[in-house]
């Protein structure tokens, strides 16, 4: 193992992480909800009366974030092709639905509340992600 010092960004990553934590704090204290993106989006596919507005508003906030931060340029490295992205999207959509959460709901909020389910889920998706990248590197 070697550390990728070129791309390592401890300070902006820490600050960005704290903003994510602040957002989770806002949502739980103002709306009584856990900031789990997959759950918030998934709930829009089975809409229930009185439970749609806050979900749309939250997703709207996510979508306008790049415009609000246009001064901060990010050059995303998206190596995956369209077919891989489509397959990955399907797996992420179905997997987070069955697993009741993703990096935000389980990873951030769940670990913050020391939920045993979220600790297990986070360990599993981290290990599965690492194994996938490892195997992908062997094939490439």
């Amino acid at each position: 193992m070697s550390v990728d010092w070129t791309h390592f960004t401890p300070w902006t990553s820490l600050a960005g992480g704290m903003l994510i934590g602040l957002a989770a704090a806002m949502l739980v204290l103002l709306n009584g909800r856990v900031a789990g993106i997959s759950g918030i989006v998934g709930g829009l596919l089975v809409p229930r009366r009185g439970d749609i507005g806050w979900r749309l508003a939250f997703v709207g906030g996510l979508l306008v974030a790049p415009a609000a931060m246009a001064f901060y340029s990010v050059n995303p490295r998206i190596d995956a092709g369209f077919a891989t992205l489509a397959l990955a999207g399907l797996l992420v959509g179905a997997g987070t639905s069955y697993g009741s959460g993703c990096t935000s709901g389980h990873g951030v909020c769940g670990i913050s509340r020391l939920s045993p389910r979220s600790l297990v889920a986070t360990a599993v998706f981290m290990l599965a992600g690492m194994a996938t990248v490892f195997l992908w590197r062997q094939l490439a």
Partner: protein
Amino acid sequence: MSALGAFLAGLVFGLGLILSGMTDPGKVIGFLDLTGNWDPSLAFVMGGAVQVGFLAFAIARRRTRNFLGGAMRVPDRRDIDARLVGGSAVFGIGWGLAGFCPGPALVSFGSGQDKAAVFVAAMLLGMLVYTIAERTRRTSAAA
């Protein structure tokens, strides 16, 4: 009022994802690439988020109503079942393939990237497949 709060929470969440580097799939894959050229940044994202989140949920735990007077709907399940483990494993595979998880994918879609749009469309389809499969399962169980 609660919709405005949710919008601001989504906005701050998105800003955090951009600043932290999570909207760069290469950076996410760099973190998952333990045996390669490892980028530890994502551990700092998690660390920062959990520090603040820990305080927030400590406050939330002591409340029966949120600050706007509405109900608290924090999950309370504690059981670890095959769906949790299997679903999380499938999610992890997809995450490792693309370097996108749901939040950063939506933010990248918001910045107009066609690759993120494909990922988001497929993700919604995956969620829809689950919704339909669950509905079918419940209907056949009830019959």
